[in-house]
Each structure stands twice: as C-alpha cells, then as structure tokens.
C-alpha cells in the first residue's frame, strides 16, 4: 500500500465514524466533550452549525450515527449520541445573540422556498445571513412541515419546534407566507424570484386498494393525513380496536397516537418477520411498552364492511423462506376492528408543476435532480429533502438544504454550480504536558444509559405529554464519558520513529504493527490482531528510517486512549484533535470542481 495521505480531510473524517455516517456531518465527539465540560451553549451551537435543529433531532433523529459508533464495536452498544444532542438543547441558555447576524443591507437577491419543512428552513438558515431575501410559502398556518404535522407532540413538544424554527424565521431576512399553498409553479416563476427551492416533502400517503377500501371511508385513514389531523386538532378520537397496516416509523407514531385518543386494543400488522421492519428498534420498543401488539407475517387481503360499517379486516397468514424473499399463504384470519390506519409509505406528488416549464420528470413521475447541485433541469429551480428523491428523514433534509444553499449562492453569484467550496480540516496537538492531554483519554467502562420515560399510568393523560424525560445530570456525565473521542487522531511522524515497539506493545487493542510493506490484503493478514472489519481503513506510514519497514494501524477498534503517544520516546506518535471545517454557503475557502452527478432517471 502507498503511504496514507492524512492531508486529505476525508481520511481522518472517516475515522470519526459517527460524523462520517451523519448526512450533515455533525461534530459529535466535539459537542460531547463540550457537554462533559458543562458548556451547553457551545455544545448546542456546534450542533446547530451542521444539523440546524438539535432539539428536534435530539428527539426524532433516525440516528445513522449510532449504528456506526465505534463504541458499538468495542462494548456492544453505541454512545447515546441522539440523547446527548437533546441534552444540549435542554440545558442551553439564551444563545440568540450568538447566531449569525442577519445584515440589514440585503444583497438584492430574492429566493422563494416552497414548504417550511426542515430542508427549506436549512436553506433559509444558510442564506439569510448572507443578505438574501427569503420568502417561504407554507400551506399551513405554522412552520415545521412534517416535523409539525407528522411527529406527535408526545415525542416532539411544540415549544421545541417553535423555538428552533423561530431561530430561523423570526430574525429578519425571512418572511413566511402561511396558508399559501403553491398551486402553480408557473405563477411562482412569474413572481421573478432569483431562485426557487422546492422543499415540499413527500406529502401523499400510499393507498391500499383492496376490496372494501372505500366502503367505509370514515373509519379507514391514511396514516400521515390522520396524524396531521390529530396534530391540528381536527381529530380527537378513534375507535377502541385499531389496526395499523405497515410497520415503519409512521406506523409507530400512528399506533402510539391511537393509544392516546381512545384506542385500547391496537395491533400493528406487518407482512414480514420482525428483523425486516423499517421502524427503528427503539420506536418499536416504545410502542410495545405502551401495550401495542405487533403482529408479524400477516398480509392484508380485504376490508370487511357490514351495513356500511367497518367491522374487521381479513389477512393472509404468511410463511417466509430464509431471508424472507418468498412467502406462502398458510391460512386466512379475520381481525375485528373499529378503525384501520394505513401507514405503508409516502409518495411525492407534484400536480402543481406544469410539465411545459422545462422541469423534466423521470421514472415514478419524479423530477430529475442533480445529486451534487440539487438543481433540476430548469436552471434556478432546486429540489431537496423528501421532494428530491422520495422519503428519507429529517437529517437528510438538513444535509440537502446545506448543499442546495451552496448551489443557490453560486447560482445567484454567477459561479458554476460545480465549483463548490471544499471541506478542510484543522489538526491541533492535544498534548498539554507530561501525561496530560486536552481530553479524557481513559477508557470508561460505563454501560449505555437508559432513557427514563413518564410512568405508563400518567402517560396517556394528555395527548401532548412528552414521554421521554431526557438525561439527568448523572446520566449525562456518564454517557458523555463513553465517547471514545475518535476525533482525537493518532498522528504519526515516520521520520521520528526509532522502532522501539513501545506503541505496538502498549496498544490495548493491538491495532499497531511494524512490518514490511505489502498490498492491503497481505498487510491485513500480518497484523498484530485479526483484522475482521474491511470497512475500516488501514493507516500505512512512509518507510521508517532505521529498517525501511512501515507502521500499520488498523483503525477498526482504536479506542483513542493515546497510550501509543504516551509511550513514544520520540513523540513520533501524537494525539491530534481533528476538526472538520465543512463548507457551507458563503464559506470563504478554496473552491474545487465537483463533477455533476446526473439525477436518477
């Protein structure tokens, strides 16, 4: 292998598994260290820089960071990153005067954002401080989009949503036209905005066209529409026996909301075995804790309506082969019910985009959107969030918003969309003195802290009572110490190495080896410890001065304890704090050419 290029910010970025896995590249270890120091304002702002909605995401994020977390490979359970994010929002003080100022003098560019959901608000968040005049068109009378309408208050209190959307909307530069659904793109184009961003989400719940579907429309509901009606107070009750069809996270919100508006016997009906569910494991656990029954291997067959009233649903009972690819029907059952909620997915719908405006539509009637620039085939019209490529989640919407904001800024400044500001990094030694580091380098064997929930006896007293209480001080302190500080990197200077083996001998996970060079497969077979995880990089040094061998580090389970640097007599090893300086709209850094990635057809 060639010597590893650690000048490339991506090498060290990949070592920080959580940050690499996060679509918005949140500096997780950085904010966890700030929490440990009690600097909650700083921790919140560091979060907000990348993910914009720490309080919201601290409760609702899909958490791609946690399965990636190195701690999971070290003791089996990842750091409770999401819970700690909520801590920053819960404990921060007033930070409004530390947000980027909105200039009074505008740059003369007017941007229209369609929808006040997470992706649009991220675009507004990035562009308003640059002097853009932002107009947001929102069909409801409150901002937040799906975060408002589809996530129940008992998971995400309205005050949290109000506060974090307010940080973007209420500081000038952004005006929101509420109750203003866009019904024609042509009409909007006529308003002569400099750029238009479509962040309308995927607002249409999927239908289940089975016999009897429309025989009692009053008692068969589309999940996201029903959640929206509950959220806006249009629906306050549901029948005693409720069936939820589908087992994604929307289904979990539907069943738990049903439990709070009159449902008592609630069943979530799934076609496939449990290991194939789309819902996050923690959401399944929360639903089951509330007495929701999850029924597997049942495929809906028909709605049973008697005398115009839904009385049951019929299901085929399935048996699956290994891998759950093929099923055979082994019987049919009738499950009595009073209401059915369909939560089998969402679709995009663009009836308001006229097809003669130069906005190309491809497969599934989806707009063709460039995956790097987020621009569609009509220059100046951008898409992001669920509206671009179908339903994902909030953190992806935020990531899209940042990138689209860069494109819009380029577009309005006459810069090629593919000339994008590049990510850079800072590397600063963490050494303070003899046996002194700027971070807690000891491995803390604490177990993952469990979230405390409101007692079941009180939980259903109000529809809006938040179930999760958040971490207390002791839980926060313990959980913060579980973080392995993967961003404090093991920096190696080959020219200083005297090959004394001290680092190789001291490493608690035997991730270091001094050996002669070779290709990756060969090197992996000759390391001090087995190297089972091929997804993790090998660091390879340039040849060492005395013997010409190389230092190899398997990044897989390095716990960043710093003992290699601690035992190195020549400081060839040093612990260096890595900070990713991610590029946002207006970043005054080197622009690099990024090839356009054609949108999916």
């Amino acid at each position, binding site marked *: 292998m060639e010597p590893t290029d650690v000048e490339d910010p991506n090498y060290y970025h990949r070592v920080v598994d959580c940050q690499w896995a996060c679509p918005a590249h949140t500096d997780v270890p950085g904010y966890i260290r700030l929490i440990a120091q009690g600097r909650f304002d700083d921790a919140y702002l560091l979060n907000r820089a990348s993910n914009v909605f720490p309080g919201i995401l601290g409760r609702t994020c899909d958490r791609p960071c946690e399965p990636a977390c190195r701690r999971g*490979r*070290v*003791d*089996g359970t990842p750091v409770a990153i999401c819970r700690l994010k909520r801590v920053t929002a819960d404990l921060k003080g007033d930070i409004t005067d530390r947000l980027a100022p909105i200039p009074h003098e505008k740059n003369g560019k007017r941007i229209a954002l369609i929808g006040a959901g997470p992706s649009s608000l991220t675009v507004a968040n990035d562009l308003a401080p640059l002097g853009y005049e932002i107009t947001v068109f929102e069909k409801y009378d409150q901002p937040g989009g799906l975060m408002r309408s589809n996530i129940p208050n008992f998971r995400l209190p309205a005050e949290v949503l109000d506060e974090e959307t307010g940080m973007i909307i209420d500081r000038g530069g952004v005006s929101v036209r509420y109750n203003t659904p866009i019904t024609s793109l042509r009409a909007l184009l006529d308003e002569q905005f400099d750029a238009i961003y479509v962040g309308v989400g995927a607002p249409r719940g999927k239908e289940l066209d089975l016999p009897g579907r429309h025989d009692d429309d009053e008692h068969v509901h589309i999940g996201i529409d029903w959640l929206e009606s509950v959220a806006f107070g249009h629906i306050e009750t549901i029948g005693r026996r409720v069936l939820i069809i589908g087992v994604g996270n929307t289904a979990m919100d539907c069943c738990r909301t049903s439990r709070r508006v009159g449902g008592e016997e609630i069943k979530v009906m799934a076609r496939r075995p449990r290991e194939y569910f789309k819902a996050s494991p923690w959401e399944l656990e929360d639903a089951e804790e509330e007495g929701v029954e999850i029924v597997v291997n049942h495929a809906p067959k028909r709605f049973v309506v008697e005398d115009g009233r839904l009385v049951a649903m019929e299901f085929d009972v399935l048996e699956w082969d290994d891998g759950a690819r093929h099923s055979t029907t082994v019987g049919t059952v009738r499950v009595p019910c009073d209401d059915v909620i369909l939560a089998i997915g969402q679709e995009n719908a663009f009836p308001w985009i006229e097809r003669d405006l130069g906005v190309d539509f491809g497969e599934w009637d989806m707009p063709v959107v460039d995956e790097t620039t987020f621009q569609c085939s009509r220059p100046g019209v951008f898409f992001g969030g669920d509206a671009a490529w179908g339903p994902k989640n909030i953190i992806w919407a935020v990531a899209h918003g940042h990138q689209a904001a860069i494109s819009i800024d380029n577009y309005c400044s006459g810069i090629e969309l593919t000339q994008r500001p590049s990510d850079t990094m800072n590397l600063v030694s963490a050494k303070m003195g003899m*046996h*002194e*580091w700027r971070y*807690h*380098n*000891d*491995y803390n*064997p604490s177990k993952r802290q469990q979230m405390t929930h409101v007692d079941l006896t009180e939980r259903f007293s109000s529809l809006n009572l938040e179930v999760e209480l958040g971490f207390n001080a002791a839980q926060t302190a313990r959980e913060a110490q579980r973080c392995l500080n993967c961003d404090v990197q093991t920096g190696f200077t080959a020219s200083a190495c*005297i*090959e*004394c*083996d*001290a680092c*190789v*001998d*001291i490493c*608690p*996970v*035997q991730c270091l080896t001094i050996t002669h060079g070779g290709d990756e497969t060969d090197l992996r077979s000759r390391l001090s*410890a*087995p*190297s*089972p995880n091929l997804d993790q990089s090998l660091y390879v040094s340039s040849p060492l001065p*005395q*013997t010409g061998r190389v230092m190899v580090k398997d990044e*897989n*389970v390095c*716990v960043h*304890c710093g*003992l290699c640097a*601690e*035992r*190195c*007599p*020549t400081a060839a090893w040093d612990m260096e704090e890595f900070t990713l300086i991610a590029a946002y709209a207006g970043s005054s850094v080197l622009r690099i050419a990024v090839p356009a990635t054609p949108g999916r057809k």
Partner: protein
Amino acid sequence: MPSIVKPLIPLAPLAKNELGLTIRDYEGAMSTLCAGCGHDSITAAITHTFWELSTPPHTIAKLSGIGCSSKTPTYFVRGAHGFNSAHGRMATIATGAAAANRELTYIGISGDGDSLSIGIGHLAHAIRRNVKMVYVIENNGVYGLTKGQLSASADIGTRPKKGEANVVAPIDPIMLGLAMGATFLARSFSGDKEQLIPILKAAVAHNGLALIDVISPCVTFNDHEGSTKSYRFMREHEVKEVVTDYVPVREEIEVSLAGRGTRSVTMHDGSVLTFRTVPEGYDPTNRLKVEEYIREHQRHGEIVTGLLYLDESAHSMHEINHTPRDGLNKVPFSVLCPGSAALEDLMTDFR
C-alpha cells in the same frame, strides 16, 4: 484528565491460546520504565512467549534482583509467582527455588549491572550447576537507575551521554557462559521479537540454564550517537546469520523436519529446535567454533545474534545431584528433617 492505564476492551478481536486465554491475560502491571525502553519490548516478547506456549500462568515463577531490568517481572504474567531479591542474588534464589520445586517454569530477569557486576559470581555458579531456568540479561551497557554510568558490559570506545569514551574491556556474558560450561547461549535484540520469541520458547524447553543476552537500548542514557548499544547501532551492526525455528511438541507430528534446516535438535521435552540457517562452517554445538566465530565478528565491531550455542545432552542440576523426582518440597518433613536422634547417629559416623 490523563490516564496511563492500559484499559481492557471487551470486544477487542484478540486471539485465544489453548487455555482460552488472550495475550492480555499474560500481561502484568503498567510499566513505569521510561517510554521506549528496550526492556518493555523484552517484557512484551516474554508475554507473547508464554501466551503462545499456553503456559498456565500459575506454573511460572519470575525472579529478579535490582535494577531497571529487575523491575520488569512486575510487567508480565500477573498470575505468576514472583520473587524480587537483593542486588545480584537472583541466581541464588532461583537455584534454591528450583531445587525445592521442580514443577515450575523459572524465568530470571537480570541486567548487566545485576549479573555482570555485583552478581557475576552467582551467575557463574548457576551456570556451573546448570539450574533449569531461563536467564535473561537485559543488557543496555549503563546503570540506568543511577543516571547512566557505564556498566561492565560497555564496549571499549563507547561514549556515555556525558564524559569520556570507555577504555575498560567489557564482560561479554556469552563468552563467560562458554567458559563456564553453559549449555544454552543466545544473544538477541529487544527490537527484534521475531528472533527473540523463538529463542525464549527454546529456552523454556531447554533442560538446564538458558542464558539469553538481550541488547536492550536505554532510551534515556544510551541511545545517542557514539553509543554501541543504541537502536540505530544495533540495526547497523547486528549479524543475524544463526536463525532458528522452535517447534513445540504438539505440532511436531504434522511437520516434516527432514531437510528443513541445517540441523535439528530434539529438546528435552520432545519439542524440536531447527537451525534454519547457520554460517558456513558454523557448529552451534562446538564451543571452540562458536567462540572463534563471535570473536572474529567482534573484531569488526559486529554483534552476532541468534541461538549461538546449545548442548542438550548435558545434565541439569537435579540429575547431577540425584534429587528426588517429585522435588524436595514433596518430601515429607519427617524425612527431610529426621530429628536429633538421626543427627546423633550421623555425627557418630564421623567420630
């Protein structure tokens, strides 16, 4: 907050030996030696040796005297027996322990000060008695604990960190061993575990005193330009022509050794030591040839490493003295100490 404790990581992908133990089970306390000390590498080599041999930790006895080297038994195999003796007296304590209990594996760790200055007489007698033990000299040419004065193993012309070059002839433990009738003599380098670990394994299997002189650079006082025991000097002047493989008993059945090396020696316990390469005309069982070869290279400032001399036919202390097969510690007290009447009888014989 700083920490220099080596943590136990639950899911680290560490291999297990025949006893189901990982290498971490063969470690000891954290070293308090200087960072980069050669002794720590030797500690790691010993840890690997016992782990790879699947030696049960409680069957190991580790002994030492005084010095940086003599601190190191604390840093390996925490489950073993240990005795940290007075300066230079490790060999005597080991002799006594080995005389009493034949079942333990004895490993003595000493340094050039402990063994070649104050303890040289004891070392000579332990060699002479051929006590079954591994005797490691961690040889760095300086007295590290007393701030780096040149020791008895310092070569002529080597420069201390401060002061004049050495003018007094060194004591070479290998030459001493050859003269004293040692039966297993090896020299190695702390920075070369690939060589040291097989030598340590063979030493554990050897029926007698296995003396291993390991050049172990002192990073604080003897790793500078002008030193003949620095990492760089060793890498530039080491002659590694004697290369040996150690094959434990359990692997012997599958491995065909015929023609594999220039010479194979079956060890006392049935394991096999193979000299994979030796220089032209070299005979590792011929004292005179070995001495001549080492002296020839010394004249050119070269340091010969490897398992240099082996005599597996010699008797060890127990055979020489016809001690009880089960060990003195298994002999009933009434037999060991038959009482004053028996003493009277004995005394009568001499009157």
